[in-house]
């Protein structure tokens, strides 16, 4: 057996053995031509996925009941966004990995005041009937406690009626039913998308409020389930339709398929899965990145002799036997 240093010096030294002609510029040119032809061919045959974007208009038109109920949740502060925590608000501390509360420490950098930003401001910027305008004025004049009392009472009543507001028991809900109905109309007319995006301003490129509102309801979620895009069914790697998606995310996606992470209810791993999995993947990536420096890991290619296949002809020409 050779000393490790001799081997390393040999591997590092300029090659002095046999050589062969090798035209790298020609190789590169042929590669570009062939790959380009392949790309054109695949595009002609298979095209590419492009499922139409969802809009608030479609949501309010195809499933007004759900849109209405979601609006009430935004006002009541019971939606996912309202209770999200950083970076949008302080409603919760966010996820943690042991003593690391990174989500909380990073802070509220992207404040979203859920009832106002998602419901009240869009209504304020819309043309309303006299009845709707007076409901809006009533809401704005009420104390926060009063607002919450109305909205949560109505949210509970709708929940008891299985999400169907038309079947909700009567009660003291203040202006909330009129407001929810008004926003459903604004959405169905097609103006809510822009109102959430720009909020009365000219420029905006930030879709956070739209995405948050969308995520609180059933419309986006149902569409994703139908398209097989949910996280616990490898959705991260899937595309809409029969197209390959981000297959290279398998090492990240796999953790969402297995215990203890798959059960979102279980503490601490399941409920903090998003945070734990980030760390797991970070660790694995670092392992691969620094594989050349990690004893054991860097010897795997020597132990499992795939290299005998790769350099087969050279080994046989030079009559080099495998060494331990």
């Amino acid at each position, binding site marked *: 057996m050779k000393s490790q240093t001799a081997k390393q010096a040999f591997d590092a030294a300029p*090659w002095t053995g046999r050589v062969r002609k090798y035209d*790298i510029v020609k190789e590169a040119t042929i590669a570009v031509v062939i790959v380009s032809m392949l790309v054109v061919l695949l595009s002609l045959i298979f095209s590419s996925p492009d499922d139409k974007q969802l809009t608030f208009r479609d949501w309010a038109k195809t499933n007004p009941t759900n849109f209405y109920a979601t609006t009430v949740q935004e006002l009541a502060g019971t939606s996912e966004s309202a209770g999200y925590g*950083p970076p949008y608000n302080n409603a919760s501390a966010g*996820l943690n990995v042991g003593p690391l509360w*990174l989500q909380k420490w990073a802070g509220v*950098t992207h404040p979203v005041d859920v009832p106002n930003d998602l419901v009240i401001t869009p209504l304020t910027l819309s043309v309303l009937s006299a009845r709707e305008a007076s409901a809006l004025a009533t809401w704005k004049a009420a104390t926060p406690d009063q607002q919450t009392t109305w909205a949560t009472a109505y949210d509970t009543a709708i929940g008891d009626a299985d999400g169907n507001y038309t079947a909700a028991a009567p009660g003291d809900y203040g202006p909330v039913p009129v407001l929810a109905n008004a926003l459903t109309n604004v959405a169905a007319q097609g103006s809510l998308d822009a109102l959430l995006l720009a909020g009365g301003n000219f420029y905006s490129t930030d879709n956070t409020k739209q995405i948050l509102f969308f995520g609180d309801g059933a419309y986006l979620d149902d569409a994703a389930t139908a398209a097989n895009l949910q996280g616990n069914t490898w959705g991260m790697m899937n595309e809409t339709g029969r197209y390959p998606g981000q297959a290279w995310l398998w090492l990240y996606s796999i953790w969402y398929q297995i215990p203890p992470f798959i059960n979102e209810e279980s503490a601490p791993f399941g409920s903090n899965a998003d945070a734990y999995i980030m760390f797991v993947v970070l660790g694995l990536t670092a392992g691969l990145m620094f594989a050349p420096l990690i004893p054991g890991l860097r010897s795997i*290619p020597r132990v499992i002799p795939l290299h005998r296949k790769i350099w087969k002809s050279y080994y046989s020409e030079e009559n080099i036997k495998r060494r331990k």
Partner: protein
Amino acid sequence: MTTQNLESETPTPEDSKMWTARLRNAWQRNLPIDKLLPDTQPAYVASWIYVFGVLTIAAFVDILISGLILAFAGPAWYHTSSLGLFVNSLHFWGVQLFFVFMVVHLWGKFWMAAWRGRRTATWITGMVAFLASIGTAFTGYLIQTNFDAQWIAFEAKDGFNAVGIGAFFTPTNIGQIMLIHVALLPLVLGVITVMHVLLVRKHGVVPPIDALPEIEA
């Protein structure tokens, strides 16, 4: 600067201390032109696995060209015109091939233990390219401006928020993501690829495992 007579322009030992001269000399020592563009390779460079690095570059070139067209024509174009959809398809399939080639390349180099002989930096720049590619593809999926993009933004924000990254990297902000995808990451990927390939040329192709001739003791 003073004007000097001709004699003083002939190089003196002092001149090799100039920064410019040092850079030139270091380059010359490490990567002379016949090392950069050799017309021979060691005899063991005889396997299909060696083609995959170049194929990855080829796919990258295709992605840059189709991406440039998409950037000028704008997102609305490829939702509504069949030519737009076709260019979008070129971009999409270019990316799929790019990843297939790169992953084969990565595992090929792994099983060849191609980091041997002071080639650790080559491996690490490769891994950085791999990570930058994942970031580029991810942000690309976010700026599709279609249903898939909406869903990915909704889902992915939770992962980034969970570890505090969401505080500054915002999958739901298309303006930020578009800039990262079309400007920042292609630049990073281009620069790191150039470094990677220059390192490969500097060190030459790694010899086979056990190629060191056995000397009788």
